[in-house]
């Protein structure tokens, strides 16, 4: 089957085309040529760029290590105490709010792509969804979770 040989996810593309039907703009059905094999190969080649740089540098650079040179840099002072300490909780609160909003956008993107085909009710629904999140943001703001201390 020539389609499978080309490594393209044409099946997924056709599936999408069928779901949304005739309302779909012509370019979308035509241009869904997902080629994830390329992404895999591109990732490997992208990895070789820093490796190549390291290799060239390893061949060219001088290697003269010393105790002082390899000590931790703190503007000339000796470092005191352990670096890997417990960190303040503020970062994790930001991370929690981030996760909340990131999941929101995961729901928003499919909605945005299907927006043209959806009825007006879907728009209202999304407004309700967004306002719930806005209330969440307002609550976090009010509680001082957004203060960087």
């Amino acid at each position: 089957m020539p389609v499978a040989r080309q490594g393209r996810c044409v099946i997924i593309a056709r599936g999408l085309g069928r779901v949304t039907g005739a309302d779909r703009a012509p370019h979308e059905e035509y241009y869904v040529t997902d080629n994830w094999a390329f992404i895999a190969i591109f990732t490997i080649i992208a990895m070789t760029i820093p490796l190549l740089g390291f290799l060239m540098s390893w061949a060219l650079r001088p290697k003269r290590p010393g105790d002082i040179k390899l000590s931790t840099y703190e503007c000339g002072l000796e470092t005191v105490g352990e670096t890997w300490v417990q960190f303040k909780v503020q970062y994790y609160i930001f991370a929690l709010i981030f996760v909340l909003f990131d999941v929101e956008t995961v729901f928003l993107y499919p909605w945005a792509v299907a927006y043209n085909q959806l009825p007006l009710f879907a728009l209202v629904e999304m407004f309700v969804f967004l306002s719930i999140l806005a209330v969440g943001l307002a609550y976090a703001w009010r509680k001082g979770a957004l203060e960087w201390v």
Partner: protein
Amino acid sequence: MIEQIFLQSIFSRPWVTERLAHLVPEASLGFAVEVTMSVLKATLIILIIQIGMLWGTWLERKFIGRIQDRLGPNRVGVFGLGQPIADMVKILTKEDTTPTAAHRWVYNLGSLLIVPPAILGFAVVALDQGLIATDLSVGFLFFIAIASTSVVPIFMAGWGSRNKYALLGAMRAVAQIVSYEIPQVLSVVGVLLLAGTLSMQGLAYAQGPLGLDGGSPAFPGVWFIFIQPIAFVIFVLATTAEIERTPFDVPEAESEIIAGYHTEYSGIKFGMFYLALYFATISSAAVASVLFLGGWQPPIPTELVNWLANRAGEDAGELRASLGSLGWLWMSLKTLFMVLIFMWFRGTLPRLRADQLMAFSWKVLVPISLINLLAAGLVGKLVYTRTPIVVFGAFAITNVILLAALFWLIGWWSQRRSAQQIRFDQPAPVAPMSAESA
């Protein structure tokens, strides 16, 4: 034309198939062709962006030099054009050290893994009609997802260095990248819902004047910068923060935390962070120009092209084809424009404080992009499938109302704020000194 050379040589399946036919057995020919073409495309992209990155550093130094009334690099070669080569030689021949305290694996992997996320974004950048490495149906989502994985190598670098400044820098960088990802993705939803697609080619086609295969343009047919200007500003600001360029380079604020998460890196390992920064700058500029500036679309209004096509009658297809023939040039110019905007920021704006930075994302950009999204959703339903001029008009009115409300809010807020704060422009209230106390 350049794109013809690409399309007819290494970007064409028949050319590769012909050359592989007598090297590879028939059964695995399809697979071999696919892999070879991917490797060729990937290598070509990396070569192009490598050149773009090297002379991007030159351009940035020259441009900022001019902004600050300096000459910029002018010693190596004509106009200092040889400077990037000299810098490369310097960075390759510089000793790189690994601190004894550092966690060797995490430390080295950090500088290795910072580069691929910056490069991978180029896989979905539409350079011209049909000239795209791979037109994923989730193209923009892929770009965002890949770009945000850069927090992992950044944290690895900061934690692996076992340096207090590096750890602080990494913590700040992660908090910043994570926070600015929200306005970045939220601001674009307005664009995506009007275009109805996440594919980068689809987004370029949606902005007119050229449609697929010489046909009439898709909805809305206007560059998104004209109908979603607020989203454009938010996207550019959030992207600047995402790639940690000035004024959002708090993680690297040299006056506070030396060089942030790459304090301990030197030589080629530092070079990788530098490389990643410029790759990310160029890819973000390219994505911003596809999203908002029409990508490879020529800078001609859709209505004008439609009118011309109607007049041309049977030659309409030919007209559209000739208009689309310089797509790669428009795309390059738009990308250069966006890169220069990022550099202009760097030459002009002072750095934000860490707490201001986080507040700016959560308290300013996120609410504005949510409101902008709601407005785009409402107005989009009203003007769907109308002509570009109607869409532009409706959104122009919406944006004027939104901006007026926004400026009123900013004015109200800053007035309230200044009432609460100490006035530095007035003499401080000092208790009157009496003769007895003196």
